[in-house]
């Protein structure tokens, strides 16, 4: 197994970690601002759409098992189109990476370092993420194996701790909002969805004798979303209207659980451990950016590409949020629509290419015969 391939198990773990990072940080706070107690419905709605497109990703893998997206498109439509798609992927993953990057900032800066200059201290994060991305997909995959249990256990305990102090009556009445509201909220925050895009980018990199993706993965995703929906309900039941003013579900959900015991906030250690998910997901996104950059520049300069992608991420954060004063929400609404288009169009486009490639292969085989 080389530096740029991972096992099926590692890919699945990475995917789970990325969903934790994308769904359980800032997203529920923003959902509650838009739809109040129906935040979990938006999650399930988005998850349903993701499941459809996740199935398409699996279909691509089944049609062309060992091909990367770049190879698939360059074989069917030529290198120019493949490089164009890589460029789109770079944009997509860079803008997606900004989300967990900001989430980490929110957790640490708002809850621990009130007066800390983030631009200086984010260098620690950039180094950690950059080092992971630079080390390659194999290291990211192995790290996911090492940390999955810790992350899942931390998040699980935090949600359970929160559930003990939640008043579940606060979630009622259910379905008191219309579908348009839910779909609008989903579109505005769709940048947090589309986790299957990681798999799309990892296709051809998953080292397995059989198929890299299986239908059971969709089921795992569905179960995860049900657990997250429960987390959202607990979160809303704890904070109700104040849920929208929180910065992160993970850091807020267990805040009241231990107050009666007057033991401070030892649950913060769990919050801290759960932040590893953000770092790992960030490094995965950056790997996808570096890999796409590498494809554009001829598959020879991965190390340089990873350094470039880290620097771009740092500068993007600095220019967008610190320097030009673009609001986080504003950014999300604009990037949400763009990312939704990419999430919906790219898998369909890749299915088209996969079908073309399969037909080509069949034709070649017939001609040989």
């Amino acid at each position: 197994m080389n530096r740029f391939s991972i096992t099926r198990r590692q890919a699945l773990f990475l995917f789970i970690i990325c969903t934790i990072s994308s769904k359980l940080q800032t997203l529920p706070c923003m959902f509650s601002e838009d739809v109040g107690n129906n935040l979990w419905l938006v999650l399930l709605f988005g998850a349903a759409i993701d499941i459809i497109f996740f199935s398409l990703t699996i279909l691509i893998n089944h049609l062309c098992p060992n091909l990367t997206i770049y190879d698939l498109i360059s074989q069917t439509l030529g290198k120019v189109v493949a490089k164009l798609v890589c460029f789109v992927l770079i944009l997509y993953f860079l803008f997606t990476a900004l989300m967990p990057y900001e989430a980490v900032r929110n957790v640490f800066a708002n809850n621990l370092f009130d007066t800390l200059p983030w631009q200086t201290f984010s260098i620690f994060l950039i180094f950690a993420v950059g080092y992971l991305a630079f080390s390659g997909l194999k290291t990211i995959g192995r790290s996911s194996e090492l940390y999955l249990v810790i992350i899942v256990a931390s998040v699980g305990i935090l949600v359970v701790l929160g559930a003990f102090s939640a008043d579940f009556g606060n979630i009622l009445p259910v379905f008191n909002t219309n579908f348009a509201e839910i779909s609008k909220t989903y579109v505005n925050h769709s940048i947090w969805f589309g986790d299957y895009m990681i798999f799309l980018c990892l296709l051809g990199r998953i080292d397995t004798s059989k198929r890299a993706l299986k239908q059971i993965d969709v089921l795992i995703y569905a179960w995860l979303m049900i657990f997250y929906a429960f987390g959202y309900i607990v979160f809303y039941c704890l904070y109700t209207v104040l849920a929208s003013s929180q910065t992160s579900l993970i850091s807020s959900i267990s805040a009241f659980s231990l107050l009666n015991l007057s033991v401070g906030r030892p649950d913060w250690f769990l919050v801290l451990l759960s932040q590893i998910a953000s770092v790992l997901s960030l490094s995965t996104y950056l790997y996808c950016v570096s890999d796409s950059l590498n494809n554009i520049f001829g598959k020879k300069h991965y190390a340089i590409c990873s350094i470039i992608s880290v620097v771009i991420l740092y500068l993007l954060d600095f220019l967008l949020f610190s320097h030009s004063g673009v609001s986080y929400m504003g950014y999300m609404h604009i990037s949400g629509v763009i990312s939704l288009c990419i999430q919906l169009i790219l898998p369909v486009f890749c299915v088209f290419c996969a079908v073309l490639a399969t037909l080509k292969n069949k034709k070649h085989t017939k001609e040989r015969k």
Partner: protein
Amino acid sequence: MVFSKYLATSWFKNNDDVVCREITCGAKTVCVFFVSSMIDKSLLAQTVLKPISDLKSASFKNIKQAIFCPEISDIENKKDFISSLLSGSALVFVNNSKKAISINLADFNVRSITEPPTSQVTKGPREGFVEDLNTNLSMVRRRLKSPNLAVKKLVVGRHTKTNVCVVYLDNIADKKLVKVLQDKISKIDIDGIIDSYYIETILEEGKLKFLRRIGNSEKPDVISSRLLEGRIAIFVDGSPIVLTLPFLLIEDLQSPEDYYQISARTTFLRIVRLIGLILGVLLPGIYVALQSYQYRVLPMVFLVTLLSNIEGISLPPILEILFVLFLFDILAEASARMPKLLGMALSIIGALVLGETTVQAGIISPPSIVVVAISSIMLFIIPDDVPQVSLLRILFTIVGGVAGFYGMLMSFIMASTYLVSADGYGVPLLSPYAPTNKIDKHDAIIKKPLLDLKTRPTVFQKKNITRIGGKKHE
């Protein structure tokens, strides 16, 4: 001039312990050539000198038949003359012949076999390796009475001519790795190999050599079991430490005693060691971060107690802890070097004079001493000496003081990334956890009972992995 005389006067003219004993047998002169400080003289007299002097006619063949020694060979090149002479052999020359009979009579003073001070056990074998290569090999041979136990001898060092043995089980170990190691060792160009650490350093892979990628042990039972797992051992003459590879980081948490007690107890102890290792490294940093930034995490009652104890301390938390760590390292280093008789005096100076008076003087606070003491004790529960952890402890303390939990978390991730990405001779150091290996997890943190360990670790090689019930494979 007789050739042997020429040897003595030209090559060994400055060596007064090189002796050339001449015996006249009829018309011929037999010259017995040896280094007096390296051989068993009584054995020489009985098995070589007397039989030769009893001979009526001295021919090469006659002498060879007359000598009673088991290790005897013919040599005729200059290099071999010198090396066998300096390895404790006596050389017998007949007249002006340029051919010699080499008789191994080596007798070096060897330390007796004792329990190694670095890995003492309450249960299990107490033997430890010594500095003599043959004694060490015999201890392993006694445990592994198999014709498959291969011993490949190599000589390294321009001046030391140190014997280095690559030992492995031929039907289990990875042959490619054996070849790689033999090639690497035979290509070593160095003036001398004094200890196995020299070989360890040379064989280390990777640019950033912060982590060791080669295991070691002083115990023959440990080496034997590692050989049975498919590892390769490297014995170095003059060193009681035997190297083994491939190496897994989990080995640092495993004690020889783990295999001589119930598996549940072993598992518990390994978990304790792991927690001890992590906390030992992170605790000073956590304390500094808590005091400097994240004091809100602490329970109110505890916070009040802490504040009352640190009141009046002039040093900032980070400097205070670094000072205590520095003090601890000085004491540890001094106690290691100091004669045993002075140990008591050092304890009094360390505990009473330095500890109490610095607290009373307001230089350091009692909690910081407690934190460093707990951290140090935790690091000592690791069975193997891992020098990297004390350096990591200082690093995490500095990071905790500069950037609190956030910085510590990021540094922790970077350190783990380094660990995760590190391979030693094709084997991931963090195996069986990253990457996951289900079979090998049976004897990692959790140890299953002996009868459940049906296979050898598969990370070293995939062939011949059956351990229990695999007679037909052997």
